[in-house]
Every structure is written in structure tokens, then in C-alpha cells.
């Protein structure tokens, strides 16, 4: 055993190793990425670990392994679960042979920028059990429980972490994980389980699915994953806390105790298996208490189930939660909600200022994020803007649809190029809609390389099939960059890991039948503008591949070619380089234009926009 300081993602990964996981698949997505990334870095023998093309593919691979009797883990963020759900619901109906655990990360409070969805809804919709650890220590333990549950009942099992648990680090006691158990892969032919051929099969699978969830409820109760503790005197307050919120109870009780709250008089139900609803424990709590406070982030799933039990029992007490308007469905919880709930339930008089800090952030400078110094996308956004200007279009009359990843930063100043953002690969579909809606000006779609492979190809195929006049710009930096540099199919073979092959976008697009296919080097502003101008003016589907590796990556490898140098005799501080590029390496300090040598990668875009030749590139090394 060893003591390690690890976060929830890493704890979950190590728990899965300890449980003998054989196959791990996933797609990067904040805040879930570190789970699979930490396993890849660990490189444990006799396990297969991969970043897959998208979450649906990842889940199918994991399910195949589980149907062959192995233990498999699939990791994703909530947006990825939406992608995987088509396969997931079918796999849920079939059940599994080996353990299949699906890790989904939710982001209450939105740290990373995406829909603030509550993925517990998917567990309810698919009748699958879902465990939600409240700390890295619990993540390590519950990852192992999840595999046991999955195999005991024959069902896929969700583990859900919220950002605060996924990313926070604490000390965890980690056991040796050793090698995975030697299991022969099985081939089970059973069309009643593994196909959906006909209503008889599907309806029987539906019955089996419901039966498995009931069995899971019994297993969870027997394992004591949900903890019920009743106060010695009946009739008082009951508190139901789910998942991450459990970690705030002690602190909240301690604070409320200063205002006359007695922690001993409270009955508690800590829910770590958030689906199926722990009905037996909930009934016991209702029977014991007059008032029940429900603490759960985002949607009132547990509260609604509790209300149903209360109705069935003809319980006459009061439930405090979201349905009565006490708490919001928006944002993350902390100790604040615990105290507010106790105060509401018990009529404690806790002054508002006890928990309300002095607000000063309104005086802080806005800090919109932009692409990194040396980012290849900077040149592409500048070239799009310049090409449109040269074609005599105003910026507000040309639709440029956006996609997920670093490419979305084109929405911000100084570029203000991108108009919208939906989901992986959506830019190309949206663009077609704008064309069909009757937009007369050029319509441009932008997406990154990983996005293209993930879900962009079907949209492009559709545009080609229906010959929709638009320009797709694929911004290929060779990595899944925004989530912290994961490989994708387009990453160079040298970085793919053993036996991996690069899938070349420059060969895919022409093979699909795109006649007007161009490649551009976004660090060469002049030629990029000319290429884009030409592409935009051509009829039909045009695809421009803007290709240059992510600057962070070659910077890390020490492969910088050059550094920008300012000639202050020529510079008149017109600031054009800063206003046009927005490059973080450029600044004006004490009346001089400065280049931060630690940031500059020598991309030369500042030199390209300078009218006075005041910037030149000097070779490094």
C-alpha cells in the first residue's frame, strides 16, 4: 500500500486498475480527461488503454470487451455521454458479462464552458445504477464497488464525478494493483441478449433491465453504499445529501452550531448511489422525521423521488429543496447551501453577512482568453478576416460557424471571427442550415482536427452529397489541444504510441469527392489570405486545410525556429501588431514594444502586419 496525493480522476483510474480493468477507452473532455490520461502515463502492463475517436466509439469498444467477459472502463465528460447515448441505451438493455463502468464528469458551476447538464438524468432514463463519490478517497473505493456491482448484476454502471471532486487532490491510500486477472475472452452467441431483433426480444430485454435495476438496489443496500443514521429522538430534521455535497455537511453543521443548531438531533441519509433511488432508506427517514432537507446539485432528482415516497406513505411533513424554491437548479453547492437549508428548516437566525463576503470583483479588469502565443489558429483567424475584407464583405454579413476546442477562441477579440458554438462537429451542419435558409453571402464553417474526426466527417459528407455551397476550414494543429494535448487520429505517427498510425486529413477530404481542396500554412499570412479568397469564391463545397502543429507542443520540444525582435528606431508604437494579432507575447512597457522571449515562438505574424518593417525574426540556436 502507498499513500498518494491524487485527484478524483486519478483515484478513479487507480481504483479501476485495482479492480482488474483490462480495457480502458475514452475521449478527452474537461474535467474527466485526467482519468484516462493518468493511466496512459502509468502504462500498466497487460491492459489496453486508448483515446478513441469519439465517446460513442469508446463506449462500443468497452462494451465489446465487457461482452467478451473482461472488465472495461469508459471515460467522458457529460457532452460525450450525449454522443454515446445511442449505443449506451442498447447496451443497457442487453446487459454485460464482464464489468462495464462508464465514468461521466459533470460540471456544476461551469468551470469549462458547456451545458450545465445533470447526467444523473441519463442514469434514470437508461435504468442504470450510478455511483457518485464525494471525494478522491471515495472515488478509489467506489470504482472498485462499481465493477463488483456491474458483474454481480450484469449491468453497466455509471460513476459520476463533479469537477470539484474530479480535480481536487487529497491523500489516498492506494493498494498494489498488480496484473489484471487472467480471463480468457469468451464468445457468447445469444441473439436474445445481444441483438434487438423483434419486439419479443426487446420487451423481454426491457423487463430484464428493470429487474437488474431492482437487483442493483438490493446489492447497494447490502453493501451499505448509502448511509442512513437516525437521531435518537424521532420527529426532528432529516437531511438527505447526495454525492459531492456530502463533503460539506460537517463544516456546515459546525458553522450552524454557532447559531443554536444541534448536530446530534439530525437524522442523515448520505446518498453515494444516486440511482436507483434508495427507497427503503428514504422511507425510514420519512417515518422518523417531520421535515426533510434535500441537498443535491443541479436537478432535483432525489427530491422528486423522495416526494413520491412521501406521497405513497401519506407523509405530512415538509420537504425543503429546489421544488419549494429554497435552492437554485443552477450552479455548484458549497457549505452555504447546507447552512441556508438548516436555517430554513429550523428557523435559525443566521445573519446574511455571516456567509456573505465583500464583493470586489466588479472592479477587476476583464480578461478574455485568446489563443496562445504562436498558435497556428491566430494566423487562420487573421487570414479569414483579411480575406473577407479584401472580398469587400463587412464582418457582420458573413457567417462563420464555430466548433468545440481551441478554435472557438476565434469568438474573442481581437479576431471576433466566430459566431457560434454547439457541439463537436456541429459547425458544418449549422453552416448548411444557414445556406438553405437563404443567406446570400458566403458561409464559412470552422473546426479543429480532432473535432473533424470525432463528428465532423458525417456533416461534411452531407454537404458534399447535397452540394451545399460553403467553405469548411479545418484548423489542424495535430493534437487534441484544449484538453491538454491528447493524440487523435491525425496526430503524427511518431507521437501515436506503439503501433499507432496517422490518419491524414489531406487524403480523406479529396477522397470524399471535394473538388476544391486547398492546404494553407497559417503562419504565412499573405498566401493564406489568397488561398481563402480563392476558396470562398469557388462554387460548391470548398475545404481548406490550415495545417501547422500546436505551438505549445513544438515549443516544449525546443523546436522553435525564431524569435521576434523589435527595432525601436522604426517602431512608432502604432500598436497595429497588438491590435491585429492580440498575441500575448507582445506588450508595451515604458514606452517600448516588448517581446516576451519565453512566449514568442517566432510565428512571424506580428512581422507580417507591421507596415514599418520594425519587427524581424531572428533564428534561434
Amino acid at each position, binding site marked *: 500500500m502507498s499513500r498518494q*496525493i491524487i485527484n478524483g480522476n486519478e483515484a478513479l483510474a487507480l481504483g479501476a486498475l485495482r479492480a482488474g480493468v483490462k480495457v480502458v477507452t475514452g475521449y478527452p473532455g*474537461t474535467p474527466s480527461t485526467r482519468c484516462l490520461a493518468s493511466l496512459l502515463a502509468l502504462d500498466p502492463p497487460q491492459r489496453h488503454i486508448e483515446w478513441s475517436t469519439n465517446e460513442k466509439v469508446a463506449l462500443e469498444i468497452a462494451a465489446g470487451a465487457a461482452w467478451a467477459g473482461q472488465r472495461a472502463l469508459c471515460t467522458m465528460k457529460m457532452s460525450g455521454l450525449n454522443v454515446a447515448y445511442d449505443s449506451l441505451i442498447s447496451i443497457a438493455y442487453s446487459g454485460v458479462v464482464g464489468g462495464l463502468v462508464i465514468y461521466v464528469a459533470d460540471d456544476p458551476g461551469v*468551470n*469549462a*464552458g458547456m451545458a450545465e447538464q445533470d447526467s444523473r438524468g441519463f442514469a434514470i432514463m437508461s435504468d442504470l445504477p450510478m455511483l457518485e463519490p*464525494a*471525494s478522491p*478517497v471515495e472515488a478509489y473505493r467506489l470504482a472498485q464497488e462499481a465493477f463488483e456491482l456491474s458483474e454481480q448484476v450484469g449491468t453497466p454502471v455509471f460513476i459520476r464525478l463533479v469537477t*470539484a*471532486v474530479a*480535480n*481536487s*487532490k*487529497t*491523500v489516498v491510500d492506494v493498494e498494489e494493483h498488480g496484473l489484471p486477472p487472467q480471463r480468457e475472452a469468451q464468445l457468447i452467441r445469444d441473439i436474445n441478449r445481444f441483438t434487438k431483433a423483434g419486439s419479443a426480444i426487446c420487451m423481454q430485454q426491457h423487463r430484464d433491465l428493470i429487474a437488474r435495476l431492482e437487483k442493483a438496489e438490493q446489492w447497494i443496500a447490502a453493501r451499505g453504499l448509502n448511509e442512513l443514521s437516525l437521531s435518537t429522538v424521532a420527529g426532528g430534521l432529516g437531511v438527505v445529501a447526495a454525492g*459531492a*455535497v456530502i*463533503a*460539506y455537511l*460537517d*463544516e456546515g453543521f459546525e458553522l450552524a452550531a454557532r447559531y443554536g443548531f444541534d448536530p446530534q438531533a439530525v437524522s442523515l441519509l448520505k446518498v453515494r448511489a444516486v440511482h436507483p433511488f434508495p427507497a427503503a432508506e428514504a422511507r425510514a427517514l420519512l417515518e422518523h422525521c417531520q421535515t426533510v432537507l434535500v441537498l443535491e446539485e443541479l436537478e432535483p432528482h432525489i427530491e422528486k423521488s423522495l416526494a413520491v415516497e412521501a406521497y405513497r406513505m401519506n407523509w405530512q411533513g415538509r420537504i425543503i429543496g429546489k421544488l419549494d424554491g429554497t435552492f437554485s437548479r443552477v450552479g*455548484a453547492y*458549497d*457549505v*452555504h447551501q447546507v447552512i441556508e437549508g438548516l436555517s430554513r428548516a429550523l428557523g435559525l437566525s443566521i445573519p446574511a453577512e*455571516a*456567509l*456573505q*463576503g*465583500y*464583493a*470586489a*470583483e*466588479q*472592479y*477587476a*479588469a*476583464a*480578461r*478574455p*482568453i*485568446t*489563443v*496562445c*502565443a504562436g498558435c497556428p489558429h491566430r494566423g487562420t483567424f487573421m487570414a479569414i478576416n483579411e480575406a473577407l475584407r479584401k472580398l469587400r464583405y463587412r464582418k457582420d454579413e458573413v457567417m462563420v460557424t464555430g466548433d468545440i476546442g481551441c478554435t472557438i*477562441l476565434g469568438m474573442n*477579440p*481581437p479576431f471576433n471571427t466566430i459566431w457560434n458554438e454547439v457541439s463537436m462537429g456541429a459547425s458544418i451542419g449549422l453552416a448548411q442550415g444557414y445556406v438553405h435558409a437563404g443567406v446570400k453571402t458566403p458561409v464559412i464553417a470552422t473546426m479543429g482536427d480532432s473535432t473533424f474526426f470525432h463528428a465532423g466527417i458525417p456533416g461534411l459528407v452531407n454537404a458534399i452529397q447535397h452540394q451545399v455551397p460553403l467553405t469548411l476550414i479545418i484548423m489542424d494543429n495535430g493534437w487534441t489541444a*484544449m484538453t491538454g494535448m491528447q493524440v487523435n487520429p491525425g496526430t503524427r505517427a511518431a507521437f501515436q504510441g506503439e503501433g499507432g498510425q496517422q490518419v491524414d486529413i489531406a487524403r480523406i477530404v479529396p477522397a470524399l469527392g471535394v473538388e476544391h481542396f486547398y492546404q494553407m500554412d497559417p503562419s504565412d499570412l499573405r498566401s493564406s489570405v489568397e488561398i481563402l479568397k480563392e476558396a470562398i469564391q469557388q462554387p460548391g463545397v470548398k475545404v481548406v486545410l490550415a495545417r501547422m502543429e500546436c505551438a*505549445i507542443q513544438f515549443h516544449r520540444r525546443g523546436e522553435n525556429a525564431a524569435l521576434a525582435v523589435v527595432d525601436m528606431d522604426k517602431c512608432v508604437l502604432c*500598436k497595429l501588431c*497588438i*491590435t491585429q494579432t*492580440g498575441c*500575448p507575447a507582445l*506588450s*508595451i512597457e515604458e514606452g517600448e514594444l516588448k517581446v516576451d522571449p519565453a*512566449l514568442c515562438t517566432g510565428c512571424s505574424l506580428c512581422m507580417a502586419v507591421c507596415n514599418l518593417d520594425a519587427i524581424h525574426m531572428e533564428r534561434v540556436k
Partner: protein
Amino acid sequence: MNYDIYLVGVGGQGVLTIAELITEAAYLQGLPVNYYPTEGMAQRGGFVKAQVRLGRGFVGPNIPEKGADLAISMELSESLKAVRFIKPGGDFVLWGHIWLPTAAMLGKAPYPTLDTVRGQIEQAGARLHYLDPHNLPLYQGELVPDNLYVLGAALGCTSLGKVLSAETVKQVVRQRWQRVAERNLFALQAGMEVLVEAER
């Protein structure tokens, strides 16, 4: 003893490194610790915060408003985002570095003055420990890493010095940077001394 630390700054300033050093040192001292970093999307130049909670084994990662015993800010404007979380009477270590957003650099957007920031921190009832970036010392002719200097100052002049032993922090620094350990220990030590003097 429970002790909560709220750290803010801009990506690339080493805010998370300070938090990691504190976390490691707490671990070595056998103090329960939870460390929750929040990074923006960009690699550099975005708002970064970290929350370190010492003393509780099982604790929610977010520090409540008015809950932090210590705030450490590496950037003038970003300090304002920590004010809400400082306890009245808590310590606020401010490294007065100014990292201008592009719009502010071009004079198109406002940026707070030191007086504004100072006023807000005082309004919240915190004890301000201001560190002037111009006083960053040199080691063998080069400026020392500012984040280690700031951590040193926090150890030297705030209650953090009662929670963590400077020796443990030095041990962590030595383990983490073997090649530049001497320079980094010098930065830490300089921070510990400079503010102690200024406070007297």
C-alpha cells in the same frame, strides 16, 4: 487546526505551484489537506485560482465566502476576485505584478489602481501584506522566481508560518527542483525575510 488558503493569479505565474508546495508540505507534516485547482481554458493568460484546505480530512473543496484565513494573489487586478473569500482579520498577501489584458494595454478597457485594490481589501477587513514587484531580488544576476518569493513572504509574515514549518517547505522545494534548488531556496528565504522586516 483548520486553515484555508485562497490563491489567485494569471495562468503562467506559478499560482498552482505555490498551492502544490503548500499541499506537499502539509502532507509531509501529516496535516490533512485538500487542494482544488481551477484553471481556465487557455494555457497562459487566463484567470487561475486554487483552494487549499488544511486540517480537515474530508472536506468540500470550495472555501466559503469569508472563510479563507489567507489569500495569496499574484496579480493586482485578480486580487479582487479573492476579496469575497477572505475572513475579516485574515491575511492578504498581494504581489503587485500587473499583467495587463490586451484591451487595457491599448487603453480601451479599465484596469484597477493599487489604491482601489488596497481599499477593497481593507474594506473586507483583511490585513494586507503588499509586495512590490520592483523589489524582487537577484540570484547570480538573475531575478528569482516570483512565486517562491511570494510563498516565502506568506510564510514569513502571516499565520501560514504557524501552520507549516519553513523547514518542511524548503524540503519540498529541494525535492521538486534538484538542479535549481539553491536558487529557489534563496527566493523563498528572501521572501521570508523581506516582509518580516517591512512589517516591523
